[in-house]
């Protein structure tokens, strides 16, 4: 994969290299410490009791039995729970949800904590929790999306999507000479990162130290501080490694707050780690949706209207609504465009952002609808998308900061071998008689920037320390961000010590929204630039420096030396400049965010095109994804190896979404019946064959200083639709419910 900026890049040549993950050896040898690996002296273990009904009240807990169990030190229930200083239903930060912290005896979803037990050992606490043996007054659980119960969503606040309306939607419907009206459903999915949620909490006076996997360190400090009535500065979080997050680890959760409260109450460190089964409840999920799409075209197959209505499941007590219909806002040029959301309140845990929130579910429906529209028009689905290619942002007319989607279509189609695809379904069979189909989908993902700060310290020996509270949840921040930092300083990677994952460092912002490399990287880039600028000033003013008197000439830094731009004969080493100035070190600061004017001027998105081949057994209806090609234009690629891995991971999630993932509720109790990896399926390696990623060159001078757009989430988008469309092409059946199950194909 090519680096997308011409060499030499601004300050050196680290970025753009496929550097192997720097934390890889620590992880595979087990020396990388994740939250629950930390066991301070005098530790207590916390285990909470998850509700086994979805709605009602807890009427009895056998506290005496639990307390009598040897090793149990405390049983916390709504009856004796010490006070919190913050309101569990308040939302102190942007990333806050209403949480369940034993504020009363009500049960609002299965899996909600209804008691917490502390023990000298994990076993004692586990057994104590079991002995509580809750009894309930249960009410009927509402776990299915029901249109009759749906209410419109008021926009505003985190997780309350706005809709848009551009052009005359009624006229768009009226003008259509062909139209479709289809409804797609997506299932509830649970993040299930390899590392389950955990916390190790220790108090010293009113200072709180936390080991906790967090995708937003400083914001989490403020979030936790709120509940305990202390300033955010009093909270320190260590999170050097996360075993995955996918959006579920940005938000403080009830069980974690309870463990911190228990540590405060007992004056001892407390550790809590969720079991796999407990991941299905209080830590967020991708809410189920039902989406209606009405598309119309004119005689030239130009879209007259995209009318996308999303209905999403949310909890009975909070407001996160999967913004699925938003996926239709920025993609295709349509005469009129409408996206709107409604929500249904169910007795489930509050859904939240899960890798590509909105886009993943919305694109699944939109890309299938586009395929159905192309079928109705009688033209190739790729050709149909090209005819409706948006040269400017639909509705607003804003220019794109860059958009190489056309190249993605072309390169992806070429690599996949799309041409010659039969228009009609059920035309292709392989040598074993398996029905074979090809489908495609477009990928779109916004390029947000959060705010971040960083510090770079050049040391007298010419090496540097760079610091920001960035998060590595497996995506490779330890590597890619260090590459950016090294470049900004003109140093080889091994001369740069990179510190991240600790809240005492300059605020690295949020690892989410596919914006972390751009944001934290931007701050590091600026901090390094600040050092180089200061170094240039010192050298230019130093009569003994070969750079003396270079005045306003620009300097560039390479391999630990400062050069006059365009004149390689004049240079000076970092170490010499510092030594002559008598400085032990030189500190530079940087920050990054997006200027509101820039955000207004341009539509900023990553794009991609995904092509999929499936084979379907004509008798058993078993589906295998045999080949996928994803071509993505995502601005500058800092580390091709890590970027490919992110994009592949996204595409694999596409397989998972299309064919496997679904949390199933027992209609009687509201419990999730498949709350573990035996029942909640994701693809295994054997299901993932023949995946290929292309990155398409894209220079974006507007998106941010580094031209980075982000690759964390876009891989899912487009992939789900591509697979479903390939299944239609193989079988002739449109299955409008995800995941697509073999028996749906059998009965279709």
């Amino acid at each position: 994969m090519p680096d997308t900026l011409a060499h030499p890049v601004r300050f050196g040549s680290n970025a753009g290299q496929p550097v192997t993950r720097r934390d890889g050896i620590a992880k595979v040898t087990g020396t990388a410490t994740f939250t629950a690996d930390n066991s301070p002296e005098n530790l207590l273990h916390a285990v909470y009791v998850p509700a086994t009904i979805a709605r009602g009240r807890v009427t009895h807990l056998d506290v005496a039995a639990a307390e009598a169990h040897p090793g149990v030190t405390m049983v916390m229930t709504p009856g004796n729970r010490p006070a919190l200083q913050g309101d569990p239903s308040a939302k102190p930060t942007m990333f806050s949800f209403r949480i369940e912290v034993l504020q009363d005896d009500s049960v609002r979803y299965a899996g909600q904590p209804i008691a917490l037990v502390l023990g000298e050992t994990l076993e004692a606490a586990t057994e104590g929790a079991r002995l509580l043996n809750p009894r309930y007054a249960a009410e009927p659980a509402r776990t299915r999306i029901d249109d009759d119960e749906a209410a419109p969503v008021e926009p505003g606040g985190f997780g309350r999507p706005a809709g848009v309306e551009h052009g005359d939607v009624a006229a768009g419907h009226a003008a259509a000479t062909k139209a479709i009206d289809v409804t797609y459903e997506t299932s509830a999915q649970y993040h299930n990162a390899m590392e389950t949620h955990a916390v190790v909490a220790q108090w010293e006076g009113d200072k709180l130290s936390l080991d906790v996997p967090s995708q937003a360190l400083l914001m989490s400090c403020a979030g936790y501080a709120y509940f305990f009535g202390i300033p955010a500065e009093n909270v320190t979080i260590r999170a050097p490694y996360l075993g995955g997050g996918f959006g579920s680890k940005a938000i403080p959760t009830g069980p974690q707050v309870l463990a911190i409260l228990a540590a405060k109450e007992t004056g001892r460190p407390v550790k809590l780690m969720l079991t796999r089964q407990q991941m299905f409840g209080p830590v967020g999920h991708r809410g189920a949706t039902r989406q209606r799409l009405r598309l119309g075209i004119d005689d030239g197959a130009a879209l007259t209207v995209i009318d996308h209505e999303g209905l999403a499941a949310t909890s009975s007590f909070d407001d996160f609504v999967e913004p699925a219909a938003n996926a239709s806002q920025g993609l295709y040029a349509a005469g009129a465009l409408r996206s709107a959301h409604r929500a249904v309140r169910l007795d489930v845990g509050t859904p939240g952002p899960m890798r590509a929130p909105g886009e993943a579910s919305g694109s699944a429906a939109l890309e299938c609808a586009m395929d159905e529209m192309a079928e109705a028009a009688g033209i190739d689905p790729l050709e149909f998308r090209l005819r409706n290619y948006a040269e400017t942002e639909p509705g607003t007319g804003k220019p794109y900061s860059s958009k190489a989607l056309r190249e993605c279509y072309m390169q992806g189609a070429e690599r996949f071998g799309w041409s010659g695809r039969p228009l009609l379904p059920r035309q292709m069979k392989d040598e074993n008689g398996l029905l074979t189909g090809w489908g495609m989908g477009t990928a779109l993902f916004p390029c947000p920037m959060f705010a971040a700060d960083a510090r770079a310290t050049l040391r007298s020996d010419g090496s540097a320390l760079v610091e920001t509270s960035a998060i590595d949840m497996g995506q490779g921040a330890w590597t890619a961000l260090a590459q950016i930092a090294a470049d900004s300083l003109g140093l080889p990677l091994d001369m740069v010590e990179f510190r991240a994952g600790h809240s005492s460092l300059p605020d690295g912002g949020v690892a989410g929204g596919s914006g972390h490399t751009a944001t934290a990287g931007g701050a590091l880039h600026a901090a390094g630039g600040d050092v180089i600028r200061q170094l240039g000033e010192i050298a230019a003013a130093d009569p003994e420096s070969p750079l003396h008197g270079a005045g306003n000439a620009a300097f560039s830094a390479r391999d630990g030396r400062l050069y006059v731009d365009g004149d390689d004969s004049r240079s000076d080493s970092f170490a010499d400049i510092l030594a002559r100035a008598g400085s032990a070190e030189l500190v530079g600061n940087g920050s990054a965010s997006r200027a509101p004017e820039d955000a207004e001027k341009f539509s900023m998105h990553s794009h991609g095109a995904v092509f999929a081949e499936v084979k379907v057994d004509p008798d058993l209806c078993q589906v295998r994804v045999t080949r996928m090609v994803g071509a993505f234009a995502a601005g500058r690629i800092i580390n091709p190896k890590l970027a490919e891995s992110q994009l592949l991971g996204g595409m694999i999630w596409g397989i998972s979404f299309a064919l496997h993932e679904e949390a199933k509720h027992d209609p009687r109790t509201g419990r999730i019946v498949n709350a573990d990896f035996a029942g909640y399926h994701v693809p295994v390696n054997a299901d993932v064959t023949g995946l290929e990623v292309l990155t398409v060159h894209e220079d974006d001078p507007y998106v941010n200083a580094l031209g980075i757009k982000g690759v964390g989430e876009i891989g899912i988008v487009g992939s789900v639709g591509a697979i479903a469309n390939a299944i239609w092409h193989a079988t002739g059946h449109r299955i409008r419910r995800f995941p697509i199950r073999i028996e749906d194909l059998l009965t279709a």
Partner: protein
Amino acid sequence: MSYLTPKSTEEALALLGQAGADVLAGGTDFFPSRGTRPQTRSILDLGQIDSLRGIEKTARGWRIGAMTTWSQIQRADLPPAFDALKRAAREVGSVQIQNRGTIAGNLCNASPAADGVPPLLALNAEVEIGSPGATRRVALSDFVTGVRRVALSPGELVLAVHVPSLPDDAVSHFLKLGSRRYLVISIAMTAAVLELDGPRIATARVAVGACSPVAQRLPGLEAALVGLTAAEVAALPVVPETHLAPLAPIADVRGSAAYRMRAVADLCRRTVIAAMTGGTTDE
């Protein structure tokens, strides 16, 4: 509780008689089924009894020690009649599970979806059961009596699985249907062991799992297959429902009853054809 590690079958049976312990083989069913409940009874770990491991040829067939793992079965030098069992062995969980999980554990756990049962039913396997001072043999079809129920009395242990001699040219095959390619609980699985007379089936034994509380042989289908060539089997329209009468699939999260019935009809035919043609259909 205590953790007992007998070194011989006799010692194990003696301990079991005294202590009333829970029997532990590879532990791959034992531990997950415990959930968060504490283990209060003693555990009798069969892992150190060497005589329970391995496969040997006997005068009347083959003896597979109770503690033989699925990995060992895959690697054993066995005639083609065991191909079905070997294929099943490769489909039990993952490699890690196959390295731990044992044949007796699979049978005693008596899951309707136990992958080892259909091939062993099709091999007419018998279970050797030991109690202090005695052993008895029970046909596998009589040993597994229901969901998680087997014909073992307190104090008894499974010592081995016996497979009666078969003609050297008997063939077999096993197919497993799951909702993903690997590491999956079966929606249905089928095993066939065939004795051939030239290109024609002389005797057929076909068994189906995960479509009834206990895996079932299909005698009607077995009789109907006699005399057919692979091409004739392939040309059969569908397996008539009467042949599938022993099955009573349930609908669960893995598949509906109707899907299971339809899929099984097809799987049976494919399994038989693959056994005859040495096919490598990988589903």
